[in-house]
């Protein structure tokens, strides 16, 4: 669903410091009603801090916040009835069952008994957790915990939803299901604020994206517009044996028409506005005693935009994905 033009979330000059450490630094953005907005950045960039400030779990040092048109700068509780939050870690009660957790969360929003029980059953079905409804949350697998936490965040059918890394650390099938549910909620008109460090996830789901690095928004634009900047580029990924640290510098001096970057361990990224001629590159590397085991054409993606805008190596994001160990980019 497209945004209707009015703003669900308005943030102006938001700043938060933890002692000497800057959480977010003078960030401003707006999210339209019904929009699916992505907040993309590496770990520690300020994504969770931003969500905590917007949901009232942290107090701001400077700036202004409006949620659903309500000024929450001084009173973060003012708009909490409009908001659902799915945090980056499960925060439900280990001693309660899945069903009890959902009905309890519904009660926190003032839902009546019949209504909350019906909604809990509905969500358990949606998230394929009906069979585990009467099991204690403590005994759930990581993926099940994540899904139930998601269900708890939308139990009261909030018009604005904050999702903090919703697919991090869960299996491929669960991640796919969660992404499907996010897309459905968006289609139904829910405003979604999604933080993620899975670039492909943001590219697939979001209408607009902000890149945040070290507490600063470095770029904010529509996903299509962001992708325009890398369209028409030719990118080749060379997988090599025993790559040397300075090999890309040597290649750049011999082939000035191309740009070279280490993409990952034993991978070289070659970028050019013209098609890349692989033969001379392979020969050059072989002369240096480096074998090319694979040459793969890479279709420009949001990851390339991210690298271009932030200067952060794609490899760093890759490491984060591996560390998270989940199915986020599957």
């Amino acid at each position, binding site marked *: 669903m497209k945004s209707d033009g009015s703003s669900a979330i308005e943030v102006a000059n938001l700043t938060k410091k933890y002692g000497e450490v800057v959480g977010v630094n003078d960030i401003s953005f707006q999210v339209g009603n019904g929009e699916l907005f992505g907040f993309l950045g590496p770990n520690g960039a300020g994504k969770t801090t931003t969500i905590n400030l917007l949901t009232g779990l942290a107090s701001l040092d400077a700036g202004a916040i409006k949620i659903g048109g309500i000024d929450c700068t001084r009173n973060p509780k003012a708009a*909490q009835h409009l908001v659902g*939050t799915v*945090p980056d870690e499960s925060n439900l*009660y280990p001693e309660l069952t899945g069903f009890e957790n959902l009905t309890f969360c519904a*009660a926190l*929003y*003032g839902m*009546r008994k019949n209504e909350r029980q019906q909604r809990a059953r509905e969500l358990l079905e949606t998230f394929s957790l009906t069979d585990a409804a009467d099991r204690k949350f403590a005994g759930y697998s990581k993926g099940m915990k994540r899904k139930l936490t998601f269900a708890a965040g939308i139990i009261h059918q909030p018009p604005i939803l904050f999702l903090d890394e919703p697919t991090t650390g869960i299996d491929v099938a669960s991640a796919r299901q969660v992404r499907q549910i996010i897309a459905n909620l968006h289609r139904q008109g829910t405003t979604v604020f999604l933080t993620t460090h899975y670039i492909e996830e943001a590219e697939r789901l979001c209408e607009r994206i902000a890149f945040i690095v070290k507490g600063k928004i470095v770029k904010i634009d529509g996903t299509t517009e962001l992708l325009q900047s890398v369209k028409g580029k030719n990118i080749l990924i060379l997988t090599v044996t025993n790559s040397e640290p300075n090999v890309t510098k040597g290649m750049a001096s011999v082939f000035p028409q191309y740009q070279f970057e280490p993409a990952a361990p034993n991978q070289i990224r070659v970028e050019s506005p013209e098609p890349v001629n692989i033969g001379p590159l392979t020969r050059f590397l072989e002369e240096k005693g480096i074998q090319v085991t694979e040459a793969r054409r890479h279709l420009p993606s949001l990851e390339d935009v991210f690298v271009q805008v932030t200067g952060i190596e794609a490899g760093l994001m890759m490491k984060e994905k591996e560390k998270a160990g989940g199915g986020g980019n599957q």
Partner: protein
Amino acid sequence: MKRWIAFSNIFAKDMRAYYLKPPNVSWGIIFPLAWTGMFFIRSGMGIESVLELLPGVVTISILFGTTSLLSVTLTFERRNRSFERLLLAPISLETLMLAKTSGAILFGIVNAFIPIAIAAFLADMSGIAWSLVVPAIILIGIVSTFLGLFISVSASEVFEAQTFSNFFRFPMIFLCGLFFPVMSLPVYIRPLSFILPVTYGVDILHGAVNGEHILSFTLDFIILGAFCTVLFLLSLRNVKRRWIL
């Protein structure tokens, strides 16, 4: 109405998940029994003197009943982040903290009536001023709970909360006139007694049960009420400062 639904469900969840667990129920019975037995044996008094010990045993039951669980459960919920779920709900912090503490208050009050029920079999209780005992028990329950809340908000780990609790609770047994009259304490220690809220609750209980009290009941009730308000407000301020970073 919505606020009441949230309040009652937080209260009911805590009662079910923490306070009505068999180990806590049995602890609530055994603890006052053990203290009563200990003081009987130590003092060498006869069964007829049970009423002299009753105010102290009632107070200690409330004090330990309220503070033990609350400080642990709150710190635990904060550690496993389930407290965040409550902070995200559209209920005021005041309502939320009252809901979280109401289970402990009720548990403390119920604990207080266990030694009273035992004493009823052992002594003549017809002379007790119940119109003073009941509100005093409720106020001691509230003030002890808010003291527990104040302690748990200041702690970040469960073991810290337990250590802080004991740091306050054990001196209070000796300083607040539970078993030794405040006026029998050395003069230089007495000011400490009068800055502790439980002293005023025990004073009411001694007056209502045995007819001996230091201050007027009205003053005791006013001071207890003031302690409840101050401790609750301080705890709220600390929650905002320490937990909503």
